[in-house]
């Protein structure tokens, strides 16, 4: 099913094309306030199926804040307010009638620091299916855990120690466990908040490969502080600066031919 993209506000100052065909999640004119402070200013962007959107920018530019709005994780922060509209297949996720619980089942999230629950590896992955009642019986649950771990590329490493605590894995394995945990709920969109920042290069490379594979089934938005990573894993890139979305476009185009001065400065390494 395909819904038409919502119209982009007239005053949108972002350079490049914010809309995209096949969009699942569309942000339009989103502002985020922490108390009085306006942390995100008038951001509009689409996230499309089978595509990775990378969000880059200097520290404190609001890219993580924006990401957390997309599955309403900001609800847990006191004094945080979101205006504008974010629509998931045409439905406003900040609408009063929208329930966050099923919403987050549809939009999963992976965090900066791996945060496995203090439970066994199996239970970590099975947790989501259990609370949402996705498995009818133990066999089905085993199947979900198995495929999730496999898709996260972790199965071969942990298949003999599923009952051991998830906190005992290495950092990279923990992060892949968190990804497995997320895809076990079979979401439509996966949000990743600097998923590799706490990992070594080898683990990072594995996660990047994994992201590329996951793209075949999910819409992915990833915040990263590494331009190389953005260039490697994403098809589209959005550049944030002090709460503004400066420029968005095809990754190749952004990195070879940025149109905005700020984007160019950042990419060429003049600041950041």
């Amino acid at each position: 099913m395909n819904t038409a993209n919502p119209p982009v506000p007239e005053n949108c100052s972002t350079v490049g094309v914010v809309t995209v065909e096949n969009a699942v999640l569309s942000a339009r004119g989103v502002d985020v306030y922490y108390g009085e402070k306006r942390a995100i200013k008038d951001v509009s962007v689409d996230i499309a199926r089978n595509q990775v959107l990378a969000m880059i920018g200097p520290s404190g530019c609001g890219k993580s804040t924006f990401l957390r709005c997309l599955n309403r994780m900001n609800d847990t922060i006191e004094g945080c307010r979101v205006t504008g509209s974010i629509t998931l297949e045409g439905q406003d996720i900040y609408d009063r009638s929208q329930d966050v619980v099923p919403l987050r089942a549809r939009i999963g999230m992976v965090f900066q620091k791996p945060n496995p629950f203090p439970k066994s590896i199996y239970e970590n992955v099975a947790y989501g299916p259990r609370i949402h009642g996705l498995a009818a019986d133990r066999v089905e649950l085993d199947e979900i855990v198995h495929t999730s771990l496999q898709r996260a590329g972790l199965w071969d490493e942990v298949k003999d120690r599923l009952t051991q605590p998830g906190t005992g894995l290495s950092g990279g394995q923990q992060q892949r466990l968190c990804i497995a945990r997320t895809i076990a709920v079979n979401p439509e969109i996966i949000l990743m908040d600097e998923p590799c920042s706490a990992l070594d290069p080898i683990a990072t490379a594995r996660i990047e490969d994994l992201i590329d594979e996951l793209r075949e089934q999910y819409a992915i938005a990833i915040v990263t502080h590494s331009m190389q990573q953005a260039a490697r894993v994403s098809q589209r890139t959005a550049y944030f600066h002090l709460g503004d979305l400066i420029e968005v476009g095809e990754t190749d185009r952004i990195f070879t031919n940025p149109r905005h001065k700020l984007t160019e400065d950042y990419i060429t390494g003049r600041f950041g």
Partner: protein
Amino acid sequence: MSHSVLLLALVVVAVLAYWVGKSRALSLVGGGRGIRNLHSLPSYYGFMAALWCAIPALIVMVLWVSAQDTVISKLVLSRLPSSVQSLDAGQLSLLKNDIRNVVSGAIPAESASPEVQAAAAGYRQLRSIADLSLVAVLLLVSGLGLFLARARIAPTLRARNSVEGVVEFMLMACSTLAIFVTVGIVLSVLYEALRFFHAVPVHEFVFGLKWSPQIAMRADQVGSSGAFGAVPLFLGTAVISGIAMLVAVPIGLFSAIYLAEYADRRFRSAVKPVLEILAGIPTVVYGFFAALTLGPFIRQLGESMGLEVASESALSAGLVMGIMIIPFVSSLADDMITAVPQSLRDGAYALGATRSETIRQVVLRAALPGIVGGVLLAISRAIGETMIVVMAAGLAANMTANPLAALTTVTVQIVTLLTGDQEFDSPKTLAAFALGLVLFCVTLLLNVVALRVVRKYREQYE
């Protein structure tokens, strides 16, 4: 001269020494302009002189005062006529008591025998001599200290370092007091308990099912040898503490969860202090409440349901003790819950877990070791709680786990055995120390385990 006056005099002398030391240092370098040539500030030379003057004198005084009485008594006894010397130890100690009482004026001198009167007079005389010579010795020691200190003072003397060394030593001494207290508890309780176990075998105490610590006043009395089987007390303690935990753990835990995870800041800041009032109320108040309000209420309630309830039932003591422990459990649980990192909550929320699912399956699971540690600490408090049970639980050592019956606890028995008039050496009073030993060991074990669990838990998330 009383000792407090002596102490005061010593302080005055030390102040004097401070002044002497300071001015000596200043005069050595030719007054205020020469301070640069001193190793330390002038006041440190003063402090050094004061310490040299006061500390040896203080040590001498403490030793003297603690030995004085024993030495004088020995002297007095050795002067007694030989007919008295040959008395056996018991009579001799009675005589010593008489002499002491006459000296302190507790017994009028006229009522005592002539030997005692003479001995008392001798005692008085020796004591006044001792007092005078103490003053003389103290003067000598402090004067000598001051003289030596003054002679040592030189511009290169590291006065500050030596003063600070002394201060640091005193700081350290204060911190080791905790060890001495523990050792003191163990030794004193253990010593008396061992004396008790001479009279009553350990296995009888630990496994005996009958507790009636009435001891015969005279050796020839029959049928009142006393029974010291402590199992009924352990049972009573366990039942009452169990009831208390049944009240305190769910209420404390749930209110901690609600306040930490659900309540908004205004509600939390209004309600938390009110709940903490419960922790600040003296236990004797809870005891009064249990004995005079809740006890009769439960009894009436039981009667209206056709149950037989003792007026001092374990139930009322346990319920009130539970109320007392609620804030203890809830504040510990609150600490543990807030120590769980937000990232774990985020992980669960991001999967679409509801709040209660996150709390039950992630937060509580993560905080479980800490909470268990907290509950162990709470149990240790319940076991050691005294006033509530003394006032509300009764004295009858019944062998039953029925919460509606009157039960007694270890702490209640310690109090009843040791209050009131009895001689200190009877098995009855010594039994209190044996109970105290059990109490100390059990709570110590619980505390050590709990503190270790809690510490490990905290380190995990630091």
